[in-house]
């Protein structure tokens, strides 16, 4: 077994859907407390990479390590399920389309997994829901159903739901892409707050300003490879690769 020093360590990740190779030998490390942004045009493999980290889209090659444990290790089916469920409890994920449970209130969305998986009592879980929903500014809507909330509010509840499992790592897959522009800021605020608390995060985003303001490091992906990576002030201001420059230029034009 290789010694393993990085908090998140993705080694030679390769992923194909049939004959389509979506991730081509990607290696990436993230240290505890770091915030890494991933940018790139649609279809470049950003979601697939993120989803490989908690094995939602299992890799076809390569390894994912989290805090010294290999996530996608080879085990008999039963054991693997047990292992992966335990790993996933440590990794929070936030989706573009929220994926809140529509038949549960905000409170129930937050309490369900901790009660089920950590055996929290109803009282303890309620307290946890109040804390987490307060943190994302949704305490007042604690007993609302998702259908009664705006997009920004839904996403904040979804973040609270993920945080309630006390993850070591948070993955955001275009958390604000489905939101009306005026609702983006309230979600960004929550993510900034997490950044201040030194939550380790990997953030796929189309918002360059936001990425520049919270990320320690930004990766530009294109066609299944990491073309370039660096601190945001370098990657955005002074990219070294033509493809990065072209992407940023197009993106800037698109934003206007």
């Amino acid at each position, binding site marked *: 077994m290789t010694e393993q020093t990085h908090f998140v360590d993705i080694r030679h990740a390769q992923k194909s859907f049939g004959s389509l190779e979506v991730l081509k030998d990607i290696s990436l490390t993230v240290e505890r407390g770091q915030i890494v942004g991933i940018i790139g045009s649609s279809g470049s493999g950003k979601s697939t990479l993120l989803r490989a980290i908690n094995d939602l889209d299992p890799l076809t090659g390569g390894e994912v390590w989290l805090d010294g444990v290999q996530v996608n290790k080879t085990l008999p089916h039963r054991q693997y399920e047990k292992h992966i469920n335990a790993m996933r409890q440590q990794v*929070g994920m936030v989706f573009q389309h929220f*994926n809140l449970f529509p038949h549960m209130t905000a409170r129930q969305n937050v309490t*369900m997994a901790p009660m089920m*998986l950590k055996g929290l009592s109803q009282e303890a879980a309620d307290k946890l829901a109040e804390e987490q929903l307060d943190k994302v500014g949704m305490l007042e809507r604690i007993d609302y159903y998702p259908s009664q909330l705006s997009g920004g509010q839904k996403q904040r509840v979804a973040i609270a739901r993920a945080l309630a499992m006390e993850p070591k790592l948070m993955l955001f897959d275009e958390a604000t892409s489905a939101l009306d522009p005026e609702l983006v800021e309230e979600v960004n605020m929550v993510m900034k707050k997490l950044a201040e608390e030194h939550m380790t995060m990997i953030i796929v985003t189309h918002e360059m300003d936001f990425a520049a303001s919270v990320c320690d490091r930004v990766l530009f992906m294109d066609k299944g490879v990491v073309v370039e990576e660096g601190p945001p002030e370098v990657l955005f201001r002074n990219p070294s690769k033509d493809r990065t420059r072209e992407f940023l230029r197009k993106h800037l034009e698109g934003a206007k």
Partner: protein
Amino acid sequence: MGLDFSIIPDYLDIILLGVAWTVGITLAAAALSFAGGVVFAVIALYAPWVIRQPFRLIEFVFMGTPLLLQLFLIYFGLVQIGIDLPAFVAGIIGLGLHFAVYNSELIQTSILAVDRGQMEAARTLGLSRGQALRKVVIPQAVRAVVPPIGNNMIALLKDSALVSVIGVSELTLSAQRAIGKTYRPFEFYILAAAFYYVINLCMEWVQRKIERRISISR
């Protein structure tokens, strides 16, 4: 001989007992058909092949043969292999399983229609597939399926009259008993029909209540 509804009160106790049996059998069979429908649906969609195949046979038997025959089989046939069920139990099982198969079809479709992101969100939190199905997917599928299942339950109510043939004194058989004593088929069949109609209305009312309650949470 003209119509004479004035004799009805003398036999009302028989008829009301029949109503009680019909309601009881319908409710019990409805509950069984619902629970069975969920179980069959999960088996059809997720169970390994060796479990799925026998269930497909059950499904075929219950969908492809007359309910009447199924009731005979359960009540008279099972005795031969040592299973001697009271008539009303045989009736509930027959009706319940018959409609469970129909409900299962509806529930399967509606499980598959639940957004994939729901299962993913649940798995991401660390739930196993079974836990995610139980807590997240199936509750949503079941909510979506209340209206069509309601229709099945009204069909179940009507088909509950068939258990009269194995001797359960439900509403139809009670009406026949009263007719046997009075030779007044028209009056008592109309009365029975009126009771079926009332039970029907009650079931629709309950269904609307349920639909209203779950519509907030969608």
